[in-house]
């Protein structure tokens, strides 16, 4: 069998694939997406009153202040939540580095509250950009947030409740609280004292 007889089809076919699946297909999807679903197509961006992009509804970001709902620890980039460096910790369950980190985080969290710490509060996500925390994790932070903002616990809880998503159909996925949406709502309801 002569391999060369396949040379032309192989090369031409590859060019055709590149044109059809590599150029036409993504461009068609992009074109239609930009017209029909611009919000999603551009990254579900959230803007403040001045039109400044404050983040994406889908991408977690760092929150350190006591008045904000805190996200999970993140292994993306050196300081966490670096969206140009999505990554998990990739530490194995027996890794001493993991035990040390969790121990350290647990100490901080135990100082804040005596409530049991949910696993997600001391573990990093797979992407390092997890936008969510578990309802238990959020609930544990309510007293701290309420105190920092001078709000009633119930008011904070209500805001968290509105940002909580239940599993699809009741059993697909896990209930989760979107941190950025909660914090935006908190800022809208009761801006932090030190900010205007």
């Amino acid at each position, binding site marked *: 069998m002569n*391999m060369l007889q396949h040379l*032309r*089809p*192989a090369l*031409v*076919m*590859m060019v*055709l*694939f590149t044109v059809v*699946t*590599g*150029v036409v297909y*993504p461009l068609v*999807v*992009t074109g239609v997406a*930009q017209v029909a679903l611009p919000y*999603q*197509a*551009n*990254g*579900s*961006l959230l803007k403040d009153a001045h039109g400044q*992009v*404050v*983040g*994406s509804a*889908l991408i*977690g*970001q*760092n929150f350190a202040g006591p008045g904000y709902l805190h996200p999970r620890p993140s292994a993306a980039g050196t300081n966490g939540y670096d*969206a*140009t460096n*999505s990554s*998990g910790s990739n*530490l*194995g*369950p*027996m*890794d001493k580095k*993991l*035990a040390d980190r*969790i121990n350290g985080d*647990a100490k901080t*969290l*135990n100082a804040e509250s005596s409530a*049991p*710490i949910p*696993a*997600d509060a001391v*573990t990093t*996500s*797979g*992407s390092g*950009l997890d936008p*969510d925390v*578990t309802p238990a994790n959020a609930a544990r932070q309510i007293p701290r947030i309420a105190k920092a903002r001078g709000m009633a616990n119930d008011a904070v809880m209500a805001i968290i409740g509105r940002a909580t998503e239940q599993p*699809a159909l009741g*059993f*697909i*996925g896990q209930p989760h609280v979107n941190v950025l949406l909660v914090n935006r709502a908190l800022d809208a309801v009761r801006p932090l004292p030190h900010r205007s």
Partner: protein
Amino acid sequence: MTWQGWAEIAFTLSVTIALGWPLGLYMARVWTGQKTWLDPVAHPIERGFYALCGVKPDEGQGWLGYASAFLMFSGAGFLLLYLILRVQGVLPLNPLHFAGMSPHLAFNTAISFVTNTNWQSYAGESTLSNLSQMAGLTVQNFASAAAGIAVAAALARAFAANRGEKLGNFWADLTRVTLYILLPISLVLAFVLLAQGIPQTLAASVDAKTLEGAKQTLVVGPVASQEIIKQLGTNGGGFFNANSAHPFENPNAWSNLIEEIVMNALAFGVFIAFGVVAFARKEARALVAAAAIIVSSAAALIYVNETLPTPALVHAQHVVATPNMEGKEVRFGAPSSSVWTAMTTGASDGGVNAMHESYTPLGGGIALFLIKLGEMTPGGVGSGLYGMVVMAIIAVFVAGLMVGRTPEYLGKKVEAREVKFAVLATLILPTALLGFAAIAAVLPEALKGLSANGPHGLTEILYAYGSAVGNNGSAFAGLTANAPWWDTTLGIAMGLGRFAYAIPVLAMAGSIAAKPKLAPTAGTLPTNGLQFVLLLLGVILILGGLQYFPPLALGPIVEHFQMLSANR
């Protein structure tokens, strides 16, 4: 473990397997060149392809011709992709001004995408231009998937033939599978995923000012169009480093469900289409059942293990020690992550929605075992089917003798030639995997890349080569694989896993096609019932177990026992 968790796992798998039927019946029409409702649009394009390539679609090829075409096409794809990756720095659509890849990384990446492995030694968002993602990787996501399905179609025709010699025309199969199956499904589902929040733009990044006043650069791009074919074609190469754990690749439970379904449904569909074309619908159902039982059991076992307490959590104060959330997204939790892991390692997809490296020893170990079984439950599109058929042939050969006849499968006698090629195909996996792994385990150059020591580090090595040889592409991602040793050996392993498997399979197909098609009698071993399913499972598990028991014992199994005692 919760009932919701079990319900989610059961629901995901049932819907996926059920969808295999309509997909398979449709695919069989495409394989056999029958009319479809896409004809008005696709047929003129199809004819254009043939005209430009100068091929006659009705001209059948023998196994050698078919295999040569397959190799040439893959070779052309490799060269083109290698070139793009090397020179992306001077090509357009590179807003972040990424430089070209190093030779070893470009070699690794090109072979990785051409072989449907999609192992990523790089992080997409910080390495690849939009042009490379689209015209380079997305193209191979289509091409390698279509080529795999084409080989499966050839095998199906071999079983259907009665003293024939032609396996079909590779170029026609490639074109039809792409234009009638992959492209239309991708077009539709890309928008469904888009609606869930996956970006699709030619822009590369957006700067945000966070509520606390920090700057966050959000990387975006033409993600949706690549995401769908990445799953549909069991490729698994993500736009982003974190793959489908990244919220932009997999924003919510619905996107997760869709991505899970498409990464297995089409592979199951290939089984069904094989049954239709080879006149063996019931037998194909048995293969589906065997694959379904393995992937379902694996999902359940992973779920059980991922809800075990882990030492780091157990020994931290006031921490709820379960589930094992390290490396998992909150929106997915243990159930979504477990079922995904089983499906992606059973399917040679390799996309991940949680980090396997951070799984419990047996949670990750089962994923590793599924990969080592050779990616056939249901495997990569096409490649899973032919892997399963090879196992069925070995099962029929060994056990079939026990009914007192020369073994036959789907009406074809299994004789020395078939056994030879089946053994050859199955031999290459352990040889490449264990061979490279054993060298890497003692090579300082290789050990530098490990992020863990002890059994976990060994698992990293085993997983890397398993993933490469099995054309899976997922990783114990702690491994720093972008180094000459890893890039090169993994690249070779990927090539062997793809071509040193598919070529013997095609040779076997050639020999099968030439045989007379025998009519079954009461004395023929039935290959369509529960009994055969159990037999096939036994052969897959025992043969797989026997090949990999020692390394598994030294990696995940011993780590499991260590973890149990550390939890005390």
